C-alpha cells in the first residue's frame, strides 16, 4: 500500500514535468475538440496522434493518447445536446434527453451536467483503475461467450424500456434493428448475408449511420416540413446547471460511472453499450420513467458518466492483460509496441512507470477537462442562437461529414438519408427509434456469442444456466423485464392499503 502511494507520487512527478504537462494538455484539448466534431472519434484521433509521438518517451505518449481518449468522451455530448447530432458512437443515447432539454432552454444544464458527470466518472474510474486493475482484469477473463450472451440479452431487455406507447411497435423496432444487424459477413461461418452483392455492406451497417439518419436527418426534414415554429428562437434559461440540477442527477452520475467502468473492462462491450444500458437502468428505476425522452436531466447524466467510465475501464484490460477492449485501446496497443514495449500481463510489473504515469495523468487530466469544459458551456449554448433556417442545413453537412469520415463511402451517406426518411415515417407512425439503434448495436453480439457458446457446448443450451455469472445475468434480464410490472403491482397494493386505512 505504502509502496503504491510512493509509485503514485512518482507518477505525479512524471506528469508534472513541464513537457509531459504540456502534452497532456494537448491531449485533453484535442480530445475535447474531437469529441465535439462529428465524424472523428477517439480511434482516428489517437491514430492521428501517433506520428506526433514518434520522438516522445512512452509514458508521455500514452498519457497524451489516453488524455485524448477520455477527453473525447467529454466533448461528445455537445452536438448531441445542441443539434441532435451525436458526436461519437457513445453519445448517441445522450441525444434522447439532451436535445429535448436544449429545446426547453436547458442546454446549459445538460451540457454542464454532462461535464460534471464525465469528471466524476473519470475520477471514480481512475481510482478503480489504480486499486483494482489486475484483479478486475482477471474478472474480465471469467466472461466467455455464454456470459456475453446473457449480458447482451440483458442489454437487449433494456431496449424494451426505451419504448413508448404500443408494445408491439416498440418490439418491432427491436426486431428491425436485429435484422439490420445481420447484414454483412457472418463471423462464425464466413457466409455473406443480405448484402445484395455490395462490397460496402460486407462489414454491416455502422450504427452511427443509422443514428445520424434517424435522429439528425429526420429532425432536419421534420422541421423543414413544419415551418410554423421555424422562426422562433429558443430562450436559454440558465447557462450553468443549478444546485438542484446537480442534486437531481448525483445518483445517476454515480450509477452511470460505476456501471460504465465495469462494462468497459469487458473486451468488446464498449462505451456505446455502456451508455445505452445505464440510460435504460436509470429509466427503469426512476420514479417518473415517463419523463425520459422528454428532457430528463438524469437521461443525460447517466450515459455521459457511463461512457467516460467505460473509456477508463477499457484501459484496465489493456494495461493489466495486454488485451485491448476497444478500438481505441487497440490503437494504443500498437503504439506501445512502436516503443518496443510488449503489452501483456507483464506490463505493470516490468514498466510500473507507464501504469502509474497514466494513472496520475488521469487524475490531473480530468481536472483539466472540467476546467476546460465548464466555461465552454455557455459558449456552445450560443449555437442555439443561430436561426433555425440556417442551423438545419448545417446539421445536414455536419452529419454527412460524420458519416463520410467513417469509411469515405458514399453508400453510407445514401443509407443515412434513407434512414432519415425512415425516421420520418417512424415518427408519423409512432414507432420508437431508440430501441432500433440499441438492437443494431447489441444484435450482432447476441447472435455471435450465442453461437460461440453453443459451438463450445456442442449444442447444449444448458451452457447459459450452468455458468453462475451467465445464470445471474439471465435472472437480472428477467427482472428487468418484469420490474415495471412488479412495481405497478406493488404501487396498487400500497394504494389499496392506504384506502383501507
Amino acid at each position: 500500500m505504502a509502496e503504491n502511494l510512493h509509485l503514485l507520487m512518482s507518477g505525479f512527478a512524471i506528469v508534472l514535468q513541464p513537457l509531459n504537462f504540456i502534452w497532456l494538455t494537448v491531449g485533453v484539448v484535442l480530445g475535447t475538440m474531437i469529441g465535439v466534431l462529428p465524424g472523428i472519434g477517439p480511434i482516428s484521433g489517437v491514430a492521428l496522434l501517433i506520428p506526433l509521438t514518434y520522438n516522445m518517451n512512452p509514458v508521455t505518449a500514452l498519457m497524451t493518447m489516453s488524455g485524448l481518449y477520455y477527453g473525447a468522451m467529454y466533448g461528445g455530448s455537445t452536438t448531441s445536446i445542441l443539434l441532435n447530432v451525436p458526436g461519437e458512437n457513445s453519445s448517441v443515447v445522450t441525444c434522447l434527453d439532451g436535445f429535448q432539454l436544449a429545446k426547453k432552454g436547458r442546454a446549459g444544464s445538460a451540457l454542464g451536467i454532462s461535464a460534471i458527470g464525465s469528471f466524476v466518472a473519470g475520477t471514480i474510474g481512475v481510482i478503480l483503475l489504480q486499486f483494482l486493475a489486475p484483479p478486475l482484469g482477471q474478472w474480465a477473463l471469467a466472461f466467455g461467450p455464454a456470459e456475453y450472451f446473457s449480458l447482451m440479452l440483458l442489454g437487449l431487455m433494456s431496449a424494451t424500456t426505451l419504448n413508448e406507447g404500443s408494445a408491439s411497435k416498440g418490439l418491432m423496432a427491436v426486431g428491425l434493428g436485429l435484422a439490420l444487424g445481420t447484414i454483412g459477413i457472418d463471423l462464425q461461418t464466413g457466409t455473406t448475408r443480405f448484402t445484395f452483392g455490395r462490397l460496402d455492406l460486407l462489414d454491416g451497417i455502422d450504427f452511427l449511420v443509422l443514428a445520424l439518419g434517424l435522429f439528425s436527418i429526420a429532425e432536419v426534414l421534420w422541421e423543414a416540413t413544419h415551418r410554423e415554429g421555424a422562426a422562433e428562437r429558443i430562450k436559454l434559461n440558465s447557462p450553468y446547471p443549478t444546485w438542484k440540477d446537480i442534486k437531481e442527477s448525483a445518483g445517476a452520475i454515480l450509477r452511470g460511472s460505476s456501471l460504465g467502468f465495469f462494462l468497459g473492462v469487458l473486451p468488446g462491450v464498449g462505451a456505446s453499450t455502456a451508455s445505452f444500458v445505464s440510460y435504460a437502468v436509470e429509466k427503469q428505476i426512476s420514479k417518473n420513467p415517463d419523463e425520459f425522452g422528454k428532457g430528463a436531466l438524469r437521461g443525460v447524466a447517466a450515459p455521459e458518466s457511463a461512457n467516460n467510465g467505460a473509456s477508463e475501464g477499457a484501459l484496465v484490460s489493456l494495461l493489466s492483460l495486454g488485451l485491448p477492449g476497444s478500438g481505441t485501446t487497440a490503437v494504443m496497443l500498437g503504439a506501445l509496441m512502436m516503443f518496443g514495449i510488449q503489452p501483456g500481463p507483464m506490463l505493470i510489473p516490468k514498466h510500473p512507470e507507464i501504469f502509474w504515469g497514466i494513472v496520475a495523468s488521469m487524475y490531473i487530466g480530468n481536472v483539466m477537462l472540467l476546467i476546460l469544459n465548464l466555461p465552454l458551456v455557455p459558449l456552445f449554448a450560443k449555437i442555439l442562437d443561430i436561426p433555425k433556417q440556417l442551423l438545419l442545413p448545417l446539421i445536414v453537412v455536419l452529419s454527412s461529414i460524420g458519416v463520410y469520415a467513417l469509411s469515405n463511402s458514399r453508400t453510407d451517406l445514401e443509407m443515412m438519408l434513407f434512414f432519415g426518411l425512415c425516421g420520418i415515417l417512424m415518427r408519423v407512425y409512432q414507432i420508437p427509434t431508440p430501441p432500433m439503434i440499441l438492437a443494431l448495436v447489441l444484435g450482432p453480439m447476441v447472435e455471435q456469442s450465442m453461437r460461440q457458446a453453443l459451438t463450445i457446448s456442442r449444442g447444449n443450451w444448458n451452457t447459459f444456466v450452468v455458468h453462475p455469472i451467465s445464470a445471474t445475468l439471465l435472472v437480472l434480464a428477467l427482472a428487468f423485464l418484469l420490474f415495471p410490472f412488479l412495481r405497478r403491482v406493488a404501487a396498487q397494493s400500497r394504494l389499496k392499503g392506504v384506502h383501507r386505512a
Partner: protein
Amino acid sequence: MFRRSYHLALALLLVLILVASVTAGCAKKYPNKPITIIAPAGPGGGWDLTARSVSKVLADTKLVSVATTVENQAGGGGGVALANVVQNKKGDGYTLVVYSPPLILINLNGQSKFGYKDITPLARLTTDYQIIAVSAKSKYKTLKDVMDALKKDPKSLTVGGASAPGSMDHLSFMLAASKAGVNVKDVPYVSFPDGSQLMSNLISGKIDVASTGVGETLGQLEAKTVIGLAVTAPKRYTDPRLKDVPTLKESGIDVTFDVWRGIFGPPDMPADAKAYISKALENMVKSTNWKKDVLEKYNWIDAYLPGDQFKSFLDEQNKALGDLLKTLGLIK
C-alpha cells in the same frame, strides 16, 4: 458589416484558387505531391501498422522526397479499398496500398471480384507467421497431443481464431490438421471478433486451442499464461519468447503458412512512379531504421522481394490457397 465579410470571403476563395492553380501549373518530375498509403482496414491492425511503419521509415530516411500519408479505408476485409484502387486510381502514381494473404482469399471466396492480378505488386516487405497455442493450464503439452486427440475424435477439442472460417486463423490450423490426418470438416471452430477476446477465452479455458498471428500472443507468452505449441514458420524464431516454440515441420507436419505483407500500386501505374517507389522500398528495407524500428519491434521477419518476383510468389500462393479452400469444401 455583412457586405464586407461577404466580399472578404469571396476574395479569400479567389486568392486560394489562384495561388493553388499557379503552384499546380508548374509540373515537376515525379514525385511532386504527397503520396497516400492506403491501409485497407481501420487503425490498429497489421495493415495499418505496416502502412504507418513504411510511411515513417520513408520519412526518417528521406528516401522519398515528398510526404507520405496513411489513409485508413476499411471494409469488406480489404475489398472496399481494393475496388477503390482498381476503379478510381488507375494510372495514378501517388496511391499505394498495403496487402497480405486476404487479398488473395477475398478474391478466391468470391467476396471481391478483384484480386492481386488487378493491381501492381511493388515489393513484398515482411513475413509474419501463425501460431497454435494453448492455455498454460491445458492438459495438452505438444502439438502431437492436440492432433492425436483430434484424430481420435475431431469434436474432442474446440479451436478458436480471431477471424471467420476461410480466413487466415482458420486456414492455417486446418491446413496443419488435415496434413496430420485429422478429419477437419468436423473440428468445431469458434471465431472471435478480435485477438483480445480470443486470448481471454484461451487463457480462461473456454476454448482449448487458439490459432492466430504470432504477434497476438507475445504478451501472453512472456507472462506464461499461454504456451505456444507450434509456429507455421520454416524455422524457429530467434526471439526469446518464441525460441522454444517448435515449427510445424519439427512436430512432424511438413507445411508452412506465410502471412506476407507487401506494397502494391494501382493498375497501370506510370513507369516513372513504379521505378521510383520500387527503388525507394528496396533501399528502405536495407536501412537500419527499418530493421531497428520496425522488424525488431513488431517481430516481423524481413521477406523483401522485388515486384516481379513478388508477382510469381503471388501466383504460387493463389494456387496453394485455392487448393486448400477446395479441400476444405469452402469453395467449389
